[in-house]
């Protein structure tokens, strides 16, 4: 570089003198890393689509959604999917009945009532609860909760594997999700709203229930939807404590297989590639993926919407 060139255009010396190919290369590598997540979704969809299409070329949609006997692994096989859908919904419902009140109450306490000290102790413990492997919850449900429930409520006539204790434990599993996401939503509510409420003479309880919770409502709903999707897809607890029997029943005392439990059962067996039981895994997997994907999408949109309000 000659000095006169610089002097002629003084502004130019500040601008980028030469393209930095290294910087472009780095940006490209980073973008590729980010695209791995897209590849994952593409991979999941690809893995599901082809065997699912093959499945429905052999089993009609009418058979799949039009009957209530499920037994793809039996001879003769039956492909009425409703028993495992109903079981999934029932166990999810039990879990939500447990987790929403407890999780929401814990969130209100941590966000509105707890001193910083209490919060500093309680939040890590909730994180530990969130980190307990689901196979451990399953073990606890099968060997502790079910015998306990049999002891306390003999009139329920619980089977040794049943939807009730599986659902209860799935509920406990999702408490931390409901609690921590709702607490985030409540903490994001500006203090001005609380002060306004106090200034009008409202008590702490009234402020929490009528001001903070409604203001954080979309965030709370998003947390609950995410928890529902987690519960619906949970595998190990339902496989261990809920069992693999698929009968069309609503009685939570009975053994029942959810969609995830069926996938686990058929997938861990030795269904030969290309056989109908093998393809059934993917068909049920598609159904589960579509259900949870829809719920996750709604949840993510609600979080986005609520972010717009308070930032």
């Amino acid at each position, binding site marked *: 570089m000659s000095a006169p060139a610089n002097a002629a255009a003084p502004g130019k010396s500040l601008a980028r003198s030469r393209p930095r190919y290294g910087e472009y290369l780095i940006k490209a590598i980073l973008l590729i*890393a980010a695209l791995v*997540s*897209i590849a994952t979704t593409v991979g999941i969809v690809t893995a599901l689509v082809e065997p699912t299409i093959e499945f429905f070329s052999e089993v009609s949609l009418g058979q799949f959604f039009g009957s209530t006997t499920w037994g793809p692994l039996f001879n003769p096989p039956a492909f009425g999917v409703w028993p495992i859908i109903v079981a999934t919904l029932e166990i999810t419902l039990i879990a939500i009945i447990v987790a929403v009140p407890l999780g929401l109450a*814990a969130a209100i306490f941590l966000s509105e009532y707890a001193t910083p000290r209490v919060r500093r102790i309680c939040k890590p*413990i909730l994180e530990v*609860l969130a980190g307990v492997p689901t*196979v451990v919850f*399953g073990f606890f449900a099968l060997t502790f909760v079910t015998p306990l429930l049999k002891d306390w409520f003999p009139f329920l006539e619980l089977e040794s594997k049943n939807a009730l204790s599986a659902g209860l434990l799935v509920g406990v599993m999702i408490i931390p999700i409901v609690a921590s996401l709702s607490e985030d939503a409540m903490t994001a509510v500006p203090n001005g709203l609380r002060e306004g409420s106090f200034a009008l003479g409202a008590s702490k309880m009234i402020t929490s229930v009528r001001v903070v919770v409604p203001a954080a409502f979309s965030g709370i709903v998003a947390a609950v939807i995410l928890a529902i999707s987690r519960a619906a897809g949970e595998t190990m607890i339902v496989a261990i404590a809920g069992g693999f029997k698929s009968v069309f029943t609503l009685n939570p005392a009975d053994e029942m297989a959810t969609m995830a439990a069926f996938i686990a059962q058929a*997938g861990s067996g030795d269904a030969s590639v290309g056989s109908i039981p093998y393809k059934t895994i993917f068909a049920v*997997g598609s159904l589960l993926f579509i259900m949870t994907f829809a719920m996750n999408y709604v949840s993510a949109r609600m979080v986005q919407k609520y972010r717009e309000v308070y930032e």
Partner: protein
Amino acid sequence: MAVLSTPKSAVQLASKGRPLKEHLFRIALLSSLAIALIFLGMLLIYTLEEGWGRLNPMLWENMPSIRRPETAGIQSGIFGTLWIISLTALMALPTGILAAIYLEEYADRGRWYNKIIELNISNLAAVPSIVYGILGLGIIARWLQFGFTVMTGAITISLLVLPIVIISAREAIRAVPPSIREGSLALGATQWQTIWRQVLPASIPGIATGSILALSRAIGEAAPFLMLGAATLVRFNPEGVWSSFTVLPLQIYNFISQSREEFHVLAAAAIVVLLAILLVMNSVAIWLRNRYQKRW
């Protein structure tokens, strides 16, 4: 005037009329939290009590068996888990952290493809783990023909924890204030020099915490491995990435599935080992966060 002569403090005014209800509400909230915590305590005590009798060196020195619960161990599960976690750390952590750097430092958030990447990551974080098992079975084991090997398991579980790594690394990077970046850029550093010398060193504690939590999720995961042939009884330690394998949580699942009572004791002992590993990892993560968390 009587109205003016009786001043009351704001607190008295606020709680006027409903002291009992207020107290009950507070107690109800506190007990909800307490139920969750007591439950965790009960679970830990019960498992420890159940498994206590089998917490001896035989547990980690012997191979699993479904015939002799009194001498069966979990060594192949422990080694399998170590293999899977090491490979997952090698694959998922760099990829996740690089993706997080892209999304926080380079991506123009208005662009449609960046929006899709973001939405996609939050969706993936909530996809059921059994569906990742289907991905591993259909694509990695069958289509790529990696078979039921350590490699297949590690790739599957890496993809599963990747969204968690990305989300937590992004939070850590976002916590570094823009003024640090602007200062570095003003001194003539390029964007990558700024990231490498200023942003990353400042966000390492946060990234490490998130990474440890993501790996502990991977250690406890069992469902995807059910689909990957790890459910069968494996009586040897993996010899390489193309060896077949089992992992600790699946070993536990196998013991639980046995009908004899002794196997439940064995399962409880194995759970104690698993929980001990996870508790140590969680504690390190929480300690790191509290120790190095910087308030800018």
